[in-house]
């Protein structure tokens, strides 16, 4: 089973209308200083897993991870539009298998919201998602 951020990265890359390419403008875990316009996925704390509802014995359990997606950009409106598109593309998805993990549901738990204007004057928005998978 991959890190949730890894699977979310694949989901976003597969959505061609978003125009996101891994290691070009889509990143995991660390927000690079360049390019200016980036989308970064972070794994965050989720709820404790269940021992029931599992699938295979060696990988039994039902997990509640969560991720945060941070979008950095130059223009506030276009950056917000991108994070909103990301939210719309992920919110409410379910019963999809990615890299061997069945995602039963993905839903937005908060955002999109303004995080800040960073030291380089770039705007940063965040959106949080709760996931359920096994």
């Amino acid at each position, binding site marked *: 089973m991959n890190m949730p951020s890894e699977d979310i990265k694949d989901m976003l890359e597969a959505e061609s209308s978003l125009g996101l390419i891994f290691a070009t403008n889509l990143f995991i*875990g660390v927000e690079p200083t360049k390019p200016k316009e980036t989308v970064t996925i972070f794994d*965050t*704390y989720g*709820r404790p897993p269940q021992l029931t509802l599992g699938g295979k014995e060696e990988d039994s359990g039902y997990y509640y991870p969560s991720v945060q997606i941070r979008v950095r950009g130059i223009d506030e409106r276009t950056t917000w539009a991108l994070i909103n598109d990301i939210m719309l593309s992920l919110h409410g998805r379910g019963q999809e298998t990615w890299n061997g993990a069945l995602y039963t549901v993905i839903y937005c738990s908060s955002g999109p919201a303004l995080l800040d204007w960073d030291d380089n004057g770039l705007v940063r928005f965040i959106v949080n998602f709760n996931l359920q998978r096994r």
Partner: protein
Amino acid sequence: MPKLYGPLKKPRSWYMKKFPNTNVEGFEQVMNNLNRAIITIKKSSERGLVNAAFFIRNVTEKETAATPLDFGNLRASWFVTWSKGVAKDPNDKYTGKFRNNPVRRISTAQFQAWHQAATAEASGMSAANPKKATVVMGYSANYAMWIHEHLGAHFTSRSPAAGPKWFQEAIDRNHGKIVEIIRQTSKVPIK
């Protein structure tokens, strides 16, 4: 033999007048007791919510991820409000005083003003609907959200315990315990 059906000649209560064919007696007493029990549950549920908020606060200080600490102003800005205003935990060991933050140039007075404004607003929310138990908890420091959501940030002064999402994590991880704390005070008194 008492009459078991059909209207009584002299109905003995409001309920009997309204539903003359039932002959049910003691309905008003049952309703009064039930309403009294509901009021008691509402009051005790609110107490339970406050206790749960105190519990969450303790978790955010004791467990990883803990509240990030620099000058202690974020920690000091914690508040809980309920219908009676600001709720203070008698066992609170963590809430200190506001201090000057020379790095960000935020004065003690500014922190106090934020705290006053936030608690006033939250108290209003808690007291807005007397029929509904509403407890508000959070931080009055205006950068709390930024720190909470700032993944990848380094919290040097309380490393490695301190981390982003400390508040959300405290709630998510202790979901069952929080429900149990609320349940403990929400019992119907049996007489």
